[in-house]
């Protein structure tokens, strides 16, 4: 998979980091700051992870804190849960989000319900990191967007950063969070997306707050991950070519959703488009649309539109079919224009 797992050195301007570097620095700083933070997963040690996110950590913190696990996701998460119950703050890596499913029972039945079922006696301060998303020729099992499965589960938090700044700040918040957080990193963003990150500064971005990525007046577009960038591109073009002002909201946290920010923007513009890469039906975008249709109905002056990945099992390998699956700026622009014309 071109760029998938291969380590290219990337140029970044001073003060800038790639999305990948930002995650690395957040992880390193938290391990430095708090020795109860450990990292475990497949190939995270000697190899530094297939995407090199954990590169160098084992040298720095040893094999007790950076553990190459056996090839078994249920054990990665299940052991992390037990370790979290006994004083550690595990950051578990699932090599690809597509392979989180063997751990589904441990995440959904155990981690998510531990605090509730023990009436607050136990909690699970654990982060599960996983690269998700397509556009890297990863085919059916290295391209999936699985966030909707977890955003339905009370007791979990689900975070998807789009920018390097948020990637670092949200990871730091996730590690300090007293409850299980699923942290999905867009694998195409790792080296593609660069941005300002205050050097040598340890900062936290709060979980549960969306961000206005681009102010606008006539339409609200909600997105996250790689799609957020495509939406901004399309919005700029819409402004330039149609003189139409689109507000783009980076959801950042999918569980819990930032209801106030979402509804405020929807009420302000009256037109809503939700863009995502996951299979269209039953995704998080459906919840955003339903929330708007229920609570901002009075202010809507157009149908609540969704542009998602098609309802096919997953993103195919062959380039034409992969492109067919993945929404891109032109297609997003077309959707914006269609809604604007309403």
């Amino acid at each position: 998979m071109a760029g998938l797992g291969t380590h290219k050195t990337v140029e970044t301007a001073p003060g800038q980091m790639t999305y990948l570097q930002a995650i690395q620095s957040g992880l390193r700083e938290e391990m430095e700051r708090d020795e109860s933070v450990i990292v475990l997963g497949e190939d995270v040690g000697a190899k530094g992870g297939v995407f090199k996110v954990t590169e160098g950590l084992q040298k720095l913190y040893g094999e007790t804190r950076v553990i190459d696990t056996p090839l078994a996701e249920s054990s990665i998460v299940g052991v992390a849960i037990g370790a979290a119950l006994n004083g550690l703050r595990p950051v578990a890596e699932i090599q690809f989000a597509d392979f989180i499913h063997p751990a589904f029972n441990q995440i959904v039945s155990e981690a998510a319900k531990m605090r509730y079922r023990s009436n607050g006696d136990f909690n699970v301060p654990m982060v599960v990191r996983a690269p998700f998303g397509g556009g890297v020729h990863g085919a059916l099992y290295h391209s999936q967007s699985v966030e909707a499965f977890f955003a339905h589960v009370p007791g979990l938090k689900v975070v998807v950063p789009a920018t390097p700044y948020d990637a670092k700040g949200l990871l730091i918040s996730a590690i300090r969070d007293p409850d299980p957080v699923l942290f999905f990193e867009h694998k195409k963003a790792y080296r593609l997306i660069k941005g300002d990150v205050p050097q040598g500064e340890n900062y936290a971005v709060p979980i549960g707050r969306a961000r206005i990525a681009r102010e606008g007046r006539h339409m609200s577009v909600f997105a996250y991950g790689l799609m957020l960038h495509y939406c901004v591109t399309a919005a700029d073009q819409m402004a330039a070519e149609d003189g139409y002002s689109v507000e783009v909201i980076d959801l950042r946290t999918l569980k819990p959703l930032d209801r106030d920010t979402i509804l405020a923007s929807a009420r302000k513009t009256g037109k809503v488009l939700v863009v995502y890469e996951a299979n269209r039906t039953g995704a998080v975008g459906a919840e955003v649309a339903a929330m708007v249709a229920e609570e901002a109905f009075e202010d809507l002056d157009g149908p609540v539109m969704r542009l998602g990945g098609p309802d096919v099992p997953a993103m195919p390998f062959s380039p034409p079919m992969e492109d067919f699956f993945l929404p891109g700026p032109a297609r997003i622009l077309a959707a914006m224009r269609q809604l604007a014309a309403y």
Partner: protein
Amino acid sequence: MAKAGLRVAGTEPGPRPEDKVLVEMYSAMLLARMVDERCWLLNRGGQAPFVISCQGQEGAQVGSVFAMDRERDWFVPYYRDLAVVLALGMTPEDIFRSTMGRTGDPNSGGRQMPSHFGSRKLRIVSQGSSVATQCLHAAGTALASKSRGEPVDTICYVGEGGTSQGDFHEALNFASVHRLPLVMVVENNSYAISVPQDLQMAVRDVAIRAEGYGIPGVVVDGQDVLAVYRATKEAADRARRGDGPTLLEAKTHRFTSHSSDDDQRAYRPEGEIEREAHEDALPRFRDELLDAGVLDADTAERIKAKILAEINTATEAAESAPYPKPEEALLNIYGDDPPSPDDLRGDPRGLPSPGDS
């Protein structure tokens, strides 16, 4: 370092608790049996919709838990392990409150079905219902203890049916690769609800799987309390020394149906229940102690009377305890700024709450 492979334990001599402790162990077994019997009464009386029993397995449970450091170690029991949690300090009243879903249930505040044990104070990891998931949590608590260099073990309990789950395999594999201080106890009562052992596995002793993980496997007569004590002690000491996990299989019996929702007469072979009833660890241990002069008939009677009185008081206290308030269902989902009821209700505009279904 420990030799991998299967051994049958129990016959050889070994450490034996002092007399005082032996009597404690007997009392713990009797207490568990009598609390369990009371739960069935509550069930028949309609005060408890569900009961799942430890009866028949008290020997394996008490023998193993007394071999651990009850002040320091971590305990990961499953729903059968009433005798384990009582031996660790849960009270009959705790159990009855939980059985009737009343406030003050220390396990779950009335949220979980009975016998889903948990207590941070007692280092009993909270259990859900999903069979065998706890095996991985036990590897995790052991990993944390080891990473801090503490001389602390974790003991985990699972049924022989639970050994079929992938999580059981993954737990033993992870624990053995990292030589974790873990004692994995399989309470083999030869049934998983209605499924007999020969449909659960193609081996007679599931402990033989230890060899596949390069760790010791031990089979012990779960109805022989002291044999279980010795085998567990040996495994616990080995773990504390840093020599890694042990797979300990205690052969035991399930005296009751799987639960109050099951009727085992439908699937148990002719005469089996009666045969197994003769292998009850409770009278067997009592007689051992009487023969050894560690216990005399009067003391035995006094112990029983004392427990009965305690159970009666506990039952009344639990029965008169209130149910949790409906809205308490909204608490303890997240730790930070708990979401307001308004966020959590099925409907955000504050419809009347249900209670009418």
